[in-house]
């Protein structure tokens, strides 16, 4: 599954990661909001980013019908393992969560959160935010403080 924003960036979600998202849709797992982090690799030369792995809700996270709060614990451990095993090429690339609506749109809390995460120093220049809806998956990124939606390549 490939998304892009103008000529600037291409984002590919690898099959294994996509399967995890698809499972939410297939099994209609939307009663509680779920979420996690996006992990993948950057190819600066080609402006191409691959999402290779995602994490799913961990023990410390808080899930409710209309809210998901992700903690650091658990997710950071998974990130550390992938970081080392990939010889420091796989890195944190953003966030995903579910919305119980067919074609999802970010809420005010989501937007504020995305902007905040994009301003963190230690993060990669490109970060992506995915919302998995009951019918489709949508992707956003933040460019110069503004949230923009990526288009899906058909």
């Amino acid at each position: 599954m490939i998304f892009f924003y103008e000529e600037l960036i291409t984002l590919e979600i690898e099959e294994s990661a996509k399967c995890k998202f698809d499972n939410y849709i297939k099994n209609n797992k939307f009663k509680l909001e779920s979420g996690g982090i996006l992990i993948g690799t950057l190819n600066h030369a080609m402006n191409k980013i691959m999402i290779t792995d995602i994490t799913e809700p961990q023990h410390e996270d808080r899930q409710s019908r209309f809210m998901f709060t992700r903690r650091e614990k658990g997710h950071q451990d998974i990130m550390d393992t992938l970081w080392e095993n990939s010889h420091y090429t796989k890195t944190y690339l953003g966030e995903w969560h579910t919305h119980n609506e067919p074609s999802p749109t970010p809420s005010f809390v989501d937007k504020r959160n995305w902007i905040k995460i994009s301003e963190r120093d230690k993060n990669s220049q490109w970060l992506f935010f995915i919302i998995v809806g009951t019918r489709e998956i949508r992707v956003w990124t933040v460019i110069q403080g503004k949230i923009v939606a990526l288009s899906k390549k058909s």
Partner: protein
Amino acid sequence: MVNLQKEFLDFHDKIKLSDENTILREKREILLNKLSDNICDEAVTYTTFNQGSYAMGTGIKPEDDDYDIDVGVKFDINKDNYSDPIKVKKWVRDALDGHTKSVEIRRSCVTVTYQKDDEPIYHVDFAIYAAANDDGKMYIAKGKEFSTEENRKWELSDPQGLITTIKDKYKDDDAKQFRRVIRYLKKWRTHNFSSDGNGTPTGISLTILAYNYFSVSKTYDWSKQKDVYDDFTALYNLARSIKNSFSYKWNETDSQWYHTISTDLPVEPYNNLFEKMTDKQLNSFYTKVDTLLTKLDEVKGKDKRSDACAVLIKIFGEDFPSTVDKSMVGTSESASL
């Protein structure tokens, strides 16, 4: 310990001032043209050459954006016909005067200072030589414009011999490691000595210490069929040899023991390059070399790349690359209402 060769090479790329630096070359060319256009008729023929660290391939970028360019001007004159070397220096000064705010005669050169708005500062130092002498040797003009008689003199000098001596000591990739290690030492100096006064060893004195005590550190990798260089070990061994070359000496005036060092220029006039430093200053130099070694030992003991780099950043400053041993995930919150 971790292999840090890549980090050292990245560090070197960041700090080196290469001969191909176009801005420096431009500034030099402009002044050389000006010199040939304006030099007085009395001045006889001359040739110019690059000297200084930049010509030896051991220059580092200045942190304060204060660039030094060293140019040698060889006049085809016999020093015996010019008892006053200041006269010859004035030929150059007068030809360049008015080019920038400041052209001044210093003890060992004529210095042109460039400063435009917030651009970096450039000093172009012209060292003036008499090159057609009875003994076939070269002499540098020393003295300021209003120096007394005894401070104006022609001093034996062999700047080009020095460059060749340094350049020919090693070949090819060995020579590259030699020059890299000299640059590391100079960067260490920038970060560990407070002033530019006599308390700081000069760039040339560090270069000559490396000339005397450096040895190539490499191993042959049979699978890749090539030499693999180890700059960390080369630097470590050099620092240890420098430390060992100090001797312990009683200083009458201070009534104290000091670690002191001396090393001679390998060409004319074969002077001790530490002659301007006091025993006390030399002792402080010794302490700093010792600290360098302790910190390098600390690097050896680190298993994590980021920890090793953190120590090296303390030695060399922020130009040494840091590596992250983590990709931070932070926290996140979302809501659908």
